[in-house]
């Protein structure tokens, strides 16, 4: 479904991604783990077209995304819950979700039904429907960011550090929701620092280190891999 071939992305003269290649197949949950500054978010931003690779190709269902503008990439079916959540702080929860469906040309009733689905998934958001996004707690903002991405009806969902800054209870709640979404058939590319949680929900994983993929494999294998256990699972 999605394929990155030897992608290099730069911030000015600093090379953030050093020729990474990865692929995500339909229906899979693939996780990209790595420490701070490894290039995980850069990878997602590059896929979304917010950053352009200097080298390499990004193919989505066979189509090269190199010159496709971000709004068109969204329309093709890639939506993202970005790093730092990036909800619209002075818009209500309802408006934030509406914005998620911005590029859709569906009838209002169809969009309304999807919104109800999001509210069923995140009952807290329904309670806070008319509240401004900026007044929500961190966990609620994360739910809103995921809900907003779902409103685009994507075929590939990019999740950037959904567990960041959340209490352990909320983290497991968010992860069980990710599992739910995946069980309904969504393809997910999940970026996480919390490798333990990420590997339990993922089918496959890639380990990113200073802009390079150093390990790849089935999530089960990565969970027992010596290097991963030491570096990312905090085990001796």
């Amino acid at each position, binding site marked *: 479904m999605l394929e990155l071939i030897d992608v290099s992305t730069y911030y000015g003269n600093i090379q953030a991604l050093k020729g990474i290649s990865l692929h995500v197949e339909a229906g899979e949950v693939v996780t990209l783990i790595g420490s701070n500054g490894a290039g995980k978010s850069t990878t997602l931003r590059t896929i*979304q*077209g*917010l950053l352009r690779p200097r080298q390499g190709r990004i193919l989505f269902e066979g189509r090269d995304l190199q010159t496709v*503008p*971000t*709004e068109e990439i*969204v*329309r093709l079916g890639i*939506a*993202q819950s*970005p790093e*730092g959540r*990036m*909800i*619209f*702080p*002075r*818009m209500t929860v309802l*408006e934030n979700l*509406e*914005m*998620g469906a*911005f*590029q859709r040309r569906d009838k209002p009733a169809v969009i309304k039904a999807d919104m109800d689905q999001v509210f069923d998934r995140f009952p807290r958001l329904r309670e806070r429907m008319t509240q401004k996004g*900026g007044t*929500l707690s*961190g966990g609620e*903002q994360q739910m809103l960011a995921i809900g*907003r991405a779902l409103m*685009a009806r994507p075929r590939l969902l990019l999740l950037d550090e959904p567990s960041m*800054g959340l209490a352990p209870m909320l983290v497991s709640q968010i992860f069980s929701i990710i599992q739910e979404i995946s069980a309904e058939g969504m393809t997910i590319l999940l970026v996480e620092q919390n490798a333990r949680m990420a590997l339990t929900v993922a089918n496959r994983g890639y380990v990113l280190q200073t802009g390079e993929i150093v390990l790849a494999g089935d999530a089960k294998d990565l969970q027992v891999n010596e290097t991963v256990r030491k570096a990312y699972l905090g085990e001796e």
Partner: protein
Amino acid sequence: MKPWQKTVLYIVVIYFIFLLGPTAGLDIPRIVQAIAQSPSLLVTQLLVGLINGAIIAIIALGYTLVYGIIELINFAHGDLYMLGGFAALTVMGAFGMQDGAPFISAIIPMLAALLVSAGLCAGLNVLTERYAYRPLRNAPRLAPLISAIGVSFIFQNLGLFWGGLRSFIPIMGNTAAAPKSFPDLLPRTDIFQALGIQTKIDFTVKDLVVLVVAAGLMIGLNLFVQRTPAGKAMRAVAQNRDAAKIVGINVDQIIVLTFLIGGALAGAAGLLVGLYNNTIVFTMGFTAGLRAFTAAVLGGIGNITGAMLGGVLIGLLSALSDQYLSSRWTDAWVFAVLVLILVFRPSGLLGENLQEKV
């Protein structure tokens, strides 16, 4: 603010009010007496301030919209409004309008002038964005600012040139740089008198028309921004540009739309001021622009309601100062109040703290 800074500030304020104040017209017993003598004059003056303020507010919206989206102070905006006035006057000339033409016969020319001046200013603003600001989008922030000042001078000279086209546009009069008289088309029928209400308050049909049009534009803009998808997209881009891209908003399109709307409002304001004050001049964009920019900052730049509030406030202050303080000191008073408000509320009256939760 530290306590000693506050003390110094209070001393400065008190000094201004009690020692410099009287020189600048702040003679409190005289003002109290004047108001007691003729309360209706106060109301009349407030109405004048309200109308002038509404026009300032419409120009201020152009500053605040653009700032909200791309954080640029578009210094050419005031001069754009001036060109709107010139476009309106040209249309009036083309229709052969003169002072005191019957109101009915002036309706179509006025609507045409509104269309032409709003359309011209919207187009010019979009072109300016495309060729003067967009290439500098990723440059240091001072670069587009200087570019905007440059565009401001270009517009001003364009206005001067336009004013000198007397052989094509006789209504421009003989001297390019001189103030042009704008035909007085709105009836000065006193509304209260016509209704048979005995009062000394002056409120004419002319005042009402300008006020209604200005208020209509502001309400329309508010509805547009709050209710329509394009308006919501504008707010989204203003609040978080990357997030706007992620949900599939074409940010460039929204920026163009913002300049289009801001420009159209400036054009409409140019027509309104011509109809209301009956005189336009090529330098009026600078002073009006300064006041409108001030209004936008006063209300909290980037905040639409704030720009409206700031505009009306400055209009009211100016009108009161003109009547009760000293018209020569009006600008000083207006800006003194601005300084005071900003010292206590640096983000403006309705400006928000831009801190967001991580």
